[in-house]
């Protein structure tokens, strides 16, 4: 028991120190504002991609409308900040909760069924939500969108550092909570659904319930990711959440490895950076992404990481503690 508490504290300390250092580097200008922006954006992408990995990688149900969930979270958060004057934290939380309700409503008719209906229903949802955003002018500003959403801080000099601090904090909390969930009995229940629904059912697992469970949590996290979008960009419009945005997250998850949190984090940062770096390719990028999806599925369906994880705690202990206590650097999926 003591060891568990010590491990938890070590991990928390590593997370706080890492976030602190990153924020300081931005604050003192070691990391320039542009890079800080990309890093923050990557952080948000990682959050949403993790949520997609939860339902598609870990639960095995393909969802294609995460941009739609983000939109719900983003607009709700913006509304809470601008119209209701709620504090940022609360606004983002409500954004997540409202999105989770959408997840429940969509999941209920769809996840009862076997087959691939979730993919097409979420795809449809992603498209329809944009139509709704355009038509709900009073709340969303219609096609023109919302402008003037307050940033994380009013101090323009502090903004890049504070954005990064917010995004990285939420991202790290998400990573830790999702990986805790996966490495628990509830996570195993979810995995069993992916592996074999009939066998899971025969083992006493309520398959429909656990699909709903994973999907609702996934929607919540995507909503939180969207919620961060609002203050990060300061404006929102429906085109920010089109179908190709959903595909971006799918590419991150597939490239990183369906069922690997580490893979999603790595792929999230790499692809977000590449996206900025490859801007000169313009439309060709739009061709490279789908090709990437096809080639990974054909030749390396496990992506970069398969379902392996790198454990930060394991690395830490390997580096700083005596050999006999150390855990292996790469946790095989099952040794969790």
């Amino acid at each position, binding site marked *: *028991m003591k060891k568990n508490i010590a491990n938890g504290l070590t991990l928390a300390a590593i997370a706080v120190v890492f976030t602190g250092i990153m924020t300081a580097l931005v604050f003192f200008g070691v990391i320039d504002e542009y890079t800080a922006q990309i890093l923050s954006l990557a952080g948000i992408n990682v959050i949403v991609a993790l949520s997609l990995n939860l339902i598609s990688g870990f639960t095995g149900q393909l969802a294609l409308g995460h941009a739609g969930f983000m939109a719900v979270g983003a607009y709700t958060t913006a509304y809470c900040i601008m119209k209701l004057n709620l504090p940022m934290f609360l606004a983002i939380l409500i954004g997540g909760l409202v999105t989770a309700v959408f997840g429940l409503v969509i999941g209920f008719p769809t996840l009862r069924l076997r087959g691939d209906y979730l993919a097409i229903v979420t795809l449809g949802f992603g498209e329809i939500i944009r139509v709704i955003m355009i038509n709900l002018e009073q709340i969303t500003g219609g096609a023109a969108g919302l402008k003037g959403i307050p940033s994380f801080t009013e101090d323009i000099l502090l903004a890049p550092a504070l954005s990064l601090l917010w995004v990285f904090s939420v991202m790290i909390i998400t990573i830790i909570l999702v990986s*805790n969930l996966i490495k628990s009995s509830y996570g*195993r229940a979810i995995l*069993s659904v992916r*592996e074999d629904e009939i066998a899971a059912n*025969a083992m006493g697992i309520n398959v429909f319930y656990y699909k709903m469970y994973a999907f609702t949590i996934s929607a919540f996290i995507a909503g939180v990711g969207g919620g961060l979008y609002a203050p990060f960009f300061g404006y929102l419009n429906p085109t920010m959440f089109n179908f190709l945005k959903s595909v971006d997250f799918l590419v991150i998850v597939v490239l990183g490895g369906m069922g690997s949190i580490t893979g999603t984090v790595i792929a999230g940062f790499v692809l977000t950076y590449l996206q900025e770096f490859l801007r000169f390719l313009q439309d060709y990028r739009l061709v490279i992404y789908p090709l990437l999806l096809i080639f990974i599925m054909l030749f390396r369906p496990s992506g970069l990481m398969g379902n392996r994880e790198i454990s930060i705690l394991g690395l830490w202990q390997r580096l700083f503690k005596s050999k006999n206590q150390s855990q292996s650097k790469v946790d095989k999926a099952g040794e969790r």
Partner: protein
Amino acid sequence: MTVLRVKDISILFGGLKAVSNFNMTLEEGELLGLIGPNGAGKTTVFNMITGVYHPTSGEIEFADKNGKFQNTTHMKPFQITQMGMARTFQNIRLFKDLTVLDNIRIAYHSNVKYKTFDAVFRTPAFFKEEAEITKKAIELLEIFNLGHKQAELAKNLPYGEQRKLEIARALATQPKLLLLDEPAAGMNPQETQDLTQLIRFIREKFNLTILLIEHDVSLVMGICERIIVLDYGQTIAEGTPAQISQDPRVIKAYLGEEVGLHA
């Protein structure tokens, strides 16, 4: 005491009556064999009892943990499993890409008491119960001589061990009734012999009632107290192994098959 009552169940598949008016009662501690030629409807009976299919007519009642009978005819498989019935599959259905240990731990899930909150925030309740589950799972694996393979992926086990793991996984749901669907399929005589021992052993150890579908008549004759013979979806004979092996209808049903009934 009776554990399971199957009353007059029938099922139609696109106009074809796969099982008709099937009746059965299982007494506590009994080991009942269900045999019959290929396509006789044995697995269909299993699937109806475990809730995978729902009978077109008839009723199934299963005694819950307090011994009270519940109508399970239209329940879902996971509900029936939670009441204390577990099964294996004819064509092994393990969680292939998960470890041997996790295959077992999943089966303990429906009895887990800690909540999502405990899991996500790693409360002491989480650590305590996880340790217990893991301990129980490893103990169970030891019984099946699979303890040393706990970290391997299920798909990497040899065939015979996959069969054993599937039985172990079913036991982890803490059933009082165990349904085994052709556990000896694909095994050689020596392995079948070992399996017979194993079934006897777990029956004693876990206080089980067992319903066994089997193709291998020698296994059924050697181990079961009572046998039901199905053919074309209908019960054609019921009785002790000795009675069954002399029943003319049974011999007729098996005629043309190479399997002899002289076990």
